[in-house]
């Protein structure tokens, strides 16, 4: 979910990540229920398939029909970097950040309430900011935990927020688990006032 837009994320055999409006243009079915085959995404409802660029590639009810070019899934810009998937806000013009080093994804944790800022998030984790990447992502260090942590959050407003972490590919299993537990603990820090 980006800025109130429901997004379907998928990765084809070619490894490319794609972020589309979560809605089949035919009858509005969420594409996140679809099935990835090769480099196409097939809608669960009527089997309409879409190629990697979002163009409709097949309508099974009419096997001989070449789908009109007007049938397209709406695409957002998406990229892989630092073990995270980045999706651009509709109005965003800059490229996804390129993050140096070899990172592996660690955790994605849901919290009830988004932190007001990166600083608040880092404080909540007991982390020190090393370098800021965007307003919502930074490299941090936590005393007692070996290595750096890539930390980001996605504010989903009334749906709370997601916290994402990556660790260096060289991180030990112990370090990875320590970071995972730090992420989990954020649930207690950023609780809804009327906690569910």
């Amino acid at each position, binding site marked *: *979910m980006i800025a109130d837009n429901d997004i379907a994320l998928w990765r084809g055999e070619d490894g490319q990540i794609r972020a589309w409006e979560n809605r089949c243009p035919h009858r509005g079915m969420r594409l996140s229920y679809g099935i990835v085959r090769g480099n196409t995404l097939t809608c669960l409802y009527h089997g309409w398939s879409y190629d990697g660029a979002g163009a409709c590639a097949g309508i099974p009810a009419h096997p001989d029909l070449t789908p009109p070019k007007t049938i397209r899934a709406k695409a957002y810009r998406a990229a892989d970097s630092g073990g995270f998937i980045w999706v651009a806000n509709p109005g965003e013009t800059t490229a996804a950040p390129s993050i140096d080093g070899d990172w592996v994804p660690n955790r994605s*944790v*849901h919290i009830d309430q988004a932190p007001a800022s990166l600083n608040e998030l880092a404080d909540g984790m007991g982390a020190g900011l090393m370098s800021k990447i965007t307003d919502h992502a930074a490299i941090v260090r936590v005393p007692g935990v070996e290595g750096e942590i890539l930390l980001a959050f996605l504010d989903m407003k009334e749906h709370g927020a*997601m916290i994402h972490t990556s660790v260096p590919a060289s991180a030990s299993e112990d370090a*990875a*688990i320590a970071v*995972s*537990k730090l992420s*989990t603990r954020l649930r207690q820090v950023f609780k809804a006032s009327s906690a569910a």
Partner: protein
Amino acid sequence: MKLFDYVLSGNCYKIRLLLDFLELSHEKQAVDFFPGREHKSDAFLQINPLGQIPVLEDDGAYIRDAQAILVYLASRYDPTGTWWPVNDPSELGRVAQWLAFADSITSTASAARLHDVLGYDLDVAQARAGAHKLFRILDDHLANQELQGFNWIAGSNPTVADVACFPYVALAGDGGIELFYYPAIQRWIRRFVNLPRFKLMPGINIFN
């Protein structure tokens, strides 16, 4: 072997899954759970005085309670000894612990589903909130299992703990419980549906 079965019941689905995983031939007797409430009829109360499904009839005996039936089937009919790992006490302890957890999932996520799908009169907000609490615990657990190289709830093999937890987690959407918040659960569902002889039940997004 005969399963007293309701097609929309997640607890019956657990049994159907394990029967298929273990390739056990069986017959099914359809119970009119909804709208007929046959499980509360005098005839059915003779079979299970608790008035609940599933019930398994095997060798002339009736076994009730979904988790108990899973344990029975795996310990009696699984030649590999992996689904109910009696030879590994520490793993067995973990499996049993998550079986109890599965019961809590039933009383929350399944309750929300009964409310939304079949119109049961209950506090659905409380049921959903209870399910979210449990799903966070499960998501954290599965994520930490992955970081240690384990794909399943109790270790490196699927066990009856996975079978017991799977249905009402995977069917949570039917009860208005969004699985979007739980990426490790989604990855576990994707692994589960790819198990050999897995059969899908309506209401499950396979995240493929």
